């Protein structure tokens, strides 16, 4: 089974994967046809990999085009003893540079400090479909374990040959191979010297179990931490190239607007300014960002606009425009819903509207592009370097082998940096200017021209017996997506369905995809049911839950939180919610305080229990879990993209509110380390249960059930 392909199959909300690039250029057609194979290769994930890629002394020039496409990771032990891992995955703040390095060090038996990782560079690293779907840890951890183990065995083999002894008796540790019998030892550097050894990897090599990890499993600090606190790390928005100019792109006033009239005579006359027009694409380059901005403002244009849907009417629009025939894979049925509802003592129906939200990574989309003899190199913050490479090749009608995409460790992404917009723009401008160009989106561009987490309408209908056993579960999601759509609770009669709606705003992946919306609807609904039968919300969940891993996180969160708790002051409330996605489990308890007079809502304390199998780095994991809770508070309480007739009306941090220090509660992460279960990813699931936990706490505090996301964009009026 191909896990990537499976992901694509179940996640229709990754709209940006199938979207065309935002710019199309009318370029001279060349002899370039995208090979079918290349398109398919985007989804290809290999099971085998080359163990050790030894290059001849002095030669570092190898290109992944020369290596089999099915390789997904490789490792190099140099003559200087430096261990270098190569992966197409990108570091976007989730700390995989550290966790992967730990895994390599652990299995190769070298110090953590001796491992270097080359990431997300299309000319150096193996093909990779992208850094998304919480796939890095579950795929890269076992792969790097296997390649590292094979490399270690090769080095042991070299030593055995050198000493003319059996390899079985030798010990690899601390970057050297030792013969306990003769007390001889040789360092990996010495063993690697003058060798060109490569090995294909046997598929079923055993790997070191988590209980025996020595470097992995430890809370090691983030790699390159010093570069971040000194400001020396170069993000793509910091890349500076010889003779580089600064680019800006002219944006239409509304989505879908086309150029009606155009006059760039003033802009063109400005010092050092180049204006580029290619169809509806208009951009400028100048010696500084400020001058580029002035040049852009000097272009006189009129636009032809088209009427569009506004946020005021979006939810009724989504319901009305749902596509009639949904296919089999977007529907899940079990038992008889009619029977389940008929036998129920209580029936509950809820509807949940979920607003569009923006990723708003602090580093906006950015790219620096350079053309050299028809070949393009782009530095850009993206989660999909190879897909970016392919898009650039396609847009500029050049072979993929003429495009190189390099991803510096990036100022966050959260699922938002899958497309190649800034890269295309920088490359187009660089080609026109004949010099390297850097494009950094403004915050307003970021809030307007990036893609959003899709809005949605979710309808839930359920039935349960007098003693709180679920008998029927009907769940419909319109537009927001299928992730986390299936209930983890035991219900004999179910109907779950996702309804596709044509895109209104440019939409796509966001940390956790639609699982956040689906979990909010389901867990809010579960809370409502618990109140109908007057059961404690935790007890009610346990009554309907047999999944042991889910029960374990619920118990762990409840224990640390002190659930159930009694209110000690007015306006106080406690809520609980849980969820599972992508092989990991989460349960969240929240305490809120509502000021009834002012309507002010404060989340006071959050305890989140999380389990993702064997933990690779508890410190990095804690950062991800706490961070997801805090980020999730934004979408839960106040984040919403507002739009009117094709214009985003709140495209600034003043009007689009994200969580700030004052919004941050006391957050406790309880990490369950299941060393008996393979490590799963942790970037997404920890964001899924915070919104319903807070919503349920608000209900407990006020008696008001808030069914929509965001819940309190303008505070909570006194109930």
């Amino acid at each position, binding site marked *: 089974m191909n896990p990537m392909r499976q992901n694509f199959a179940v996640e229709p909300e990754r709209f940006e994967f199938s979207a065309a690039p935002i710019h199309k250029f009318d370029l001279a057609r060349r002899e370039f046809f995208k090979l079918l194979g290349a398109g398919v290769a985007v989804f290809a994930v290999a099971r085998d990999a080359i163990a050790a890629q030894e290059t001849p002394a002095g030669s570092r020039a190898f290109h992944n085009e020369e290596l089999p496409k099915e390789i997904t990771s490789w490792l190099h032990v140099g003559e200087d003893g430096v261990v270098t891992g190569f992966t197409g995955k990108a570091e*976007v*703040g*989730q*700390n995989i540079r550290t966790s992967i390095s730990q895994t390599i060090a652990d299995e190769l038996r070298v110090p953590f400090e001796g491992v270097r990782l080359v990431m997300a560079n299309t000319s150096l690293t193996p093909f990779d479909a992208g850094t998304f779907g919480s796939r890095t840890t579950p795929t890269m951890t076992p792969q790097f374990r296997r390649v590292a183990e094979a490399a270690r065995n090769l080095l042991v083999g070299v030593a055995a040959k050198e000493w003319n002894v059996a390899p079985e008796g030798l010990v690899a540790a601390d970057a050297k191979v030792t013969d306990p019998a003769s007390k001889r030892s040789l360092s990996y550097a010495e063993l690697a010297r003058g060798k060109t050894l490569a090995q294909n990897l046997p598929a079923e090599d055993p790997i070191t179990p988590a209980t025996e990890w020595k470097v992995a499993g430890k809370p090691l*600090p*983030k790699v390159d*931490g*010093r570069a*971040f*606190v*000194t*400001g*020396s*790390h*170069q*993000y793509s*928005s*910091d890349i*500076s190239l010889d003779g580089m100019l*600064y680019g800006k792109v002219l944006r239409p006033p509304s989505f879908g607007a086309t150029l009606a009239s155009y006059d760039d005579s003033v802009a063109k006359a400005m010092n050092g300014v180049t204006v580029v027009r290619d169809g509806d694409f208009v951009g400028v380059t100048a010696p*500084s*960002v*400020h*001058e580029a901005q002035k040049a852009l403002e000097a272009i006189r244009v009129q636009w032809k606009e088209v009427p569009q849907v506004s946020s005021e009417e979006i939810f009724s629009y989504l319901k009305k425009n749902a596509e009639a025939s949904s296919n089999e894979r977007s529907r899940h049925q079990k038992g008889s819903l009619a029977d389940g509802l008929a036998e129920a003592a209580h029936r509950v129906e809820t509807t949940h509207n979920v607003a569009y939200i923006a*990723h*708003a*990574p*602090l*580093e*906006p989309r950015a790219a620096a592009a350079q053309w050299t003899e028809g070949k393009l190199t782009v530095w850009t913050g993206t989660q999909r370097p190879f897909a970016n490479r392919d898009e650039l090749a396609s847009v500029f009608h050049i072979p993929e082998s003429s495009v190189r995409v390099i991803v510096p*460790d*990036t*100022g*966050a992404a*959260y699922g938002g940096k899958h497309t190649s917009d800034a890269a295309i723009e920088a490359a187009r401008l660089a080609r026109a200017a004949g010099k390297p160009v850097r494009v*950094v989106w*403004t*915050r307003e561009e970021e809030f307007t021209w990036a893609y959003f987490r899709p809005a949605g309408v979710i309808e839930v209908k359920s039935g349960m017996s007098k003693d709180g056993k679920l008998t029927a579960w009907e769940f419909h999601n319109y537009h927001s997506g299928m992730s986390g759509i299936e209930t983890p609770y035991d219900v004999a009669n179910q109907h779950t369905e996702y309804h596709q709606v044509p895109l209104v705003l440019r939409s796509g992946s966001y940390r956790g995809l639609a699982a956040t919306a689906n979990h909010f609807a389901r867990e809010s609904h579960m809370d409502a049911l618990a109140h109908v039968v007057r059961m404690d919300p935790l007890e009610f969940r346990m009554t309907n839950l047999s999944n042991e891993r889910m029960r374990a996180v619920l118990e762990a969160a409840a224990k640390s939180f002190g659930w159930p708790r009694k209110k000690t002051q007015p306006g106080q409330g406690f809520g609980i919610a849980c969820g599972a996605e992508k092989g990991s489990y989460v349960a969240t308890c929240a305490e809120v305080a509502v000021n009834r007079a002012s309507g002010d809502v404060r989340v006071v304390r959050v305890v989140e229990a999380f389990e993702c199998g064997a933990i690779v780095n508890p*410190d990095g994991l804690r*950062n*991800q879990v*706490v*961070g*997801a*809770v*805090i*980020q999730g508070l934004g979408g839960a309480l106040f984040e919403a993209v507002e739009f009117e007739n094709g214009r985003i009306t709140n495209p*600034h*941090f*003043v009007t689009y509110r*994200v*969580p*700030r*220090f*004052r919004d*941050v509660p*006391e*957050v406790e992460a309880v990490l369950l380390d299941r060393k008996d279960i393979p490590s799963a990813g942790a970037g997404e699931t920890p964001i899924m249960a915070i919104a319903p936990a807070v919503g349920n706490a608000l209900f407990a505090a006020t008696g008001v059930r808030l069914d929509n996301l965001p819940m309190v964009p303008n505070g909570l009026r006194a109930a």
Partner: protein
Amino acid sequence: MAKSLEIEVNGKRYPVGYPPDTPLLYVLHDELGLTGTKYGCGEGQCGACTVLIGGAPRRSCQVPVGAAAAKPITTIEGLEKEGKLHPVQQAFLDAGAFQCAFCTSGMVMSSIGLLQTNANPKREDIVHFLQGNICRCGTHPRVLEAVQHAAKMMQERAQ
């Protein structure tokens, strides 16, 4: 362009070629190559571009370079002395108070600004002072921890 304007950054004087109405951020980041100061919004709303002007924390995207010429400017690059990190940098490193770290420079500079006027801030003082610094990764609790830790280190050092 007449190179009449000069600014003092991290104890060094630099001629400025960009027009005087250019925001200081672009001069630091693009003209002088001091890329530790970040563009996050250009609207004075996120704090990623925070530098010290005459010792006070300022959003460099909101200050025209012409207006910044009178006072010495300190950026994140000017904090390390003889290979030794500033206590606030060290505290951020010790606490692992960053994920994507794009906000870190601004957080560090703002925190130094706070500690200069309040050597022993309470948690709510730090929250109040850093309200204008956005971290999208949600690393706020560790930033608060780091600033408190830095305050302690600086007090010990001063004794």
